[in-house]
């Protein structure tokens, strides 16, 4: 018996629909079909009139959710792929994100973005957009890396009064399994030390947490103890946990799967150098995807994103400094 990451997301939505009458689901192919990734499988039958197939209108899907939130509901919108949220970009960053600041009325919508690369998915079904949305004031951007976090953080996302961009990693959907959803809760906005160590800190989130842990396991053979911090939430960003870790290790590598200019890893490195410069024994480093669209071919894709090998390599360089 095991629970996958996608099971956890489905379960969270079932829990939410059951426990909170304000919740409804809106998205393409999420009713009868149960969603492109089956994250809503069976929910339309379990909760008649609460799960809706939308037209292929991402802009209007978010507009509808904002309107429903104004009226006191808590919509969860599924984008079929994170990449298609580019169509809803304006409604997300200008309508939803500014609403509370402008009017005092919060917009508790949750936008689920199936994110990140998988084999053969290519430039338009692989993107990681957390670093785009996090730039806009008024959004909370979550990036769960574990089965239990996928569950609890989605529940928490809907409980938050602000719009949440919920970045689920497609690679983890079926690959990541846990015995059960555990009760190891942390509040939104708090990072987790997922693997303790003392020689260097790797800050990662989403699927990269697992790649980082593998790299750390590998370096263990050489006697290196690498601490891995799972950010969980990229906005707000729990810089205190990161700083505390860097205080112990003196070395920082920030790893992300998004494009390399700016984004989460740049924010992490900047915050650490601004606030914890004296803690650093070596120049902090970043490892991101390459600066091209995400390639289709598995061989290119494997070289486009960070892997345990490239993380090890970056860590060895950092440790040798």
């Amino acid at each position, binding site marked *: *018996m095991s*629970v*996958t990451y*996608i*099971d*956890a997301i*489905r*379960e969270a939505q*079932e*829990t939410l629909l059951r426990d909170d009458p304000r919740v*409804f689901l809106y998205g393409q192919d999420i009713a009868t079909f149960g969603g492109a990734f089956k994250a809503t*499988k069976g929910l339309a039958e379990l909760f008649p*009139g609460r799960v809706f197939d*939308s*037209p292929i*209108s*991402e*802009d*209007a*899907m978010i*507009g*509808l959710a*904002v*309107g*429903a*939130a*104004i*009226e*006191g*509901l808590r919509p969860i919108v599924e984008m079929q792929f994170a990449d298609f949220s580019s169509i809803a970009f*304006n*409604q997300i960053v*200008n*309508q939803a*994100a*500014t*609403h*509370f*600041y*402008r*009017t*005092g*009325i919060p917009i508790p919508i949750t936008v689920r973005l199936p994110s990140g690369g998988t084999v053969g998915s290519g430039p338009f079904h692989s993107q990681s957009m957390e670093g785009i949305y996090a730039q806009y*004031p*008024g959004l*909370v951007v979550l990036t769960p890396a574990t089965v239990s976090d996928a569950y*609890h953080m989605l*529940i*928490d996302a809907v*409980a938050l009064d*602000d719009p949440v961009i919920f970045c689920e990693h497609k690679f983890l959907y079926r690959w990541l399994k846990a015995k*059960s*959803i555990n009760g190891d*809760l*942390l*509040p*939104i*906005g*708090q990072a987790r030390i997922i693997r303790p160590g003392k020689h260097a800190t790797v800050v990662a989130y989403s699927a990269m947490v697992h790649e980082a842990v593998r790299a750390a396991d590998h370096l263990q053979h050489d006697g290196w103890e690498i601490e891995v911090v799972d950010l969980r939430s990229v906005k*707000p960003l729990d810089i205190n946990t990161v700083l505390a870790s860097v205080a112990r290790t003196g070395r920082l590598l920030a790893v992300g799967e998004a494009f390399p200019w700016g984004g989460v890893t740049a924010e992490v490195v900047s915050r650490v150098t601004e606030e914890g410069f004296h803690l650093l024994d070596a120049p902090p480093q970043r490892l991101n995807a390459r600066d091209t669209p995400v390639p289709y071919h598995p061989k290119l894709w494997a070289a486009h994103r960070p892997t345990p090998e490239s993380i090890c390599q970056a860590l060895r360089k950092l440790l040798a400094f």
Partner: protein
Amino acid sequence: MPSFADGAVTHRDFLRSAFQSMLRARILENKLSSLYKAGKIVGGVYLGRGQEAVSATLGTALIQGQDVFAPLIRDQAGRTAFGESLLDCTRTYLGSLQGPMRGRDGNIHRGRPAEGIPAMISHLGSQVSVVAGMLFARRLQGKLDGCVGATCIGDGASSTGAFHEGINLAAVEKLPLVLVIGNNQFAYSTPNRRQFACADLVERARGYGIEGFAVDGTDLLACASVITEAIRRARAGHGPQMIVARLLRLSGHGEHDDAFYVPQNIRNDHYGRDCMEVATRQLVEHQMVTSEEIHAWNDQFADEVQRAVAQAQQEAPPDPYHEDWTALSTRFPLPLRTSSPSTVRQPAAQPVCS
């Protein structure tokens, strides 16, 4: 023939009320224009001059506290008719901390979403789906009966993808959405022929599977007849209604713009006439108002406007040192575990997909 009667409101009362809102808006907007020209308003000033008949009719026909009204750029008259106070307007334009936008947003970007008036963002077309969402939510909550949601949009905004997605979604959901397109022949400086290629935008209605009406937007009686009928149909469950009102913007795009690009022949033609004059003539002729009343209203509204301006002007502006500089209603960091329930939630049943 459509009737003006909507519940207890008689034809005469309706028209007098709409006319008063037109007048109030015109006087207010004239004042805003002078304030702008005197440098008392920063940013832009956008007027609904020439569009008051359409807007006021809509605002009058809607029921405050029950319906949704998402006004756009030229809807001062509709706002007034729907019950927005003059102070909401002057406070927003003048940046008072007491206004609904507290100096954070300005001019026509104001609203009271919790009272059924969404606060527009600039991006044209974006409000259509928001109103649809408000109606959709009410249906889910079993509170939709008898409600309508109305929003206005220009000829130019009809070219936005957001407009298309929003109205199509409302049609699919068969929501009581009333969409009033004020075709004032220009989008900023851009004439209709560079904006769309159909003869009349009302021809779009059929393609969305919704009902469409064309109306002379300079004619208060026509507007009252058509718009109340469309609202009646929406209320009665006929789904979205599209009204295309033809008229001319009688100001610049904003008060910074002298509209040099509007050719004289267009200004001179039928739709170039001023709906205020037409309405005055119509109501006087039909003996629904007297010139004396109009004079009295003029004085009364000028006085109201004057007071709304004076009050907003004397109110405190927002103070950056006391401003809450966060865009979130949630205060992070959250106290440990309080964002999660006290008991550990376990999945209800066996995961379906494992």
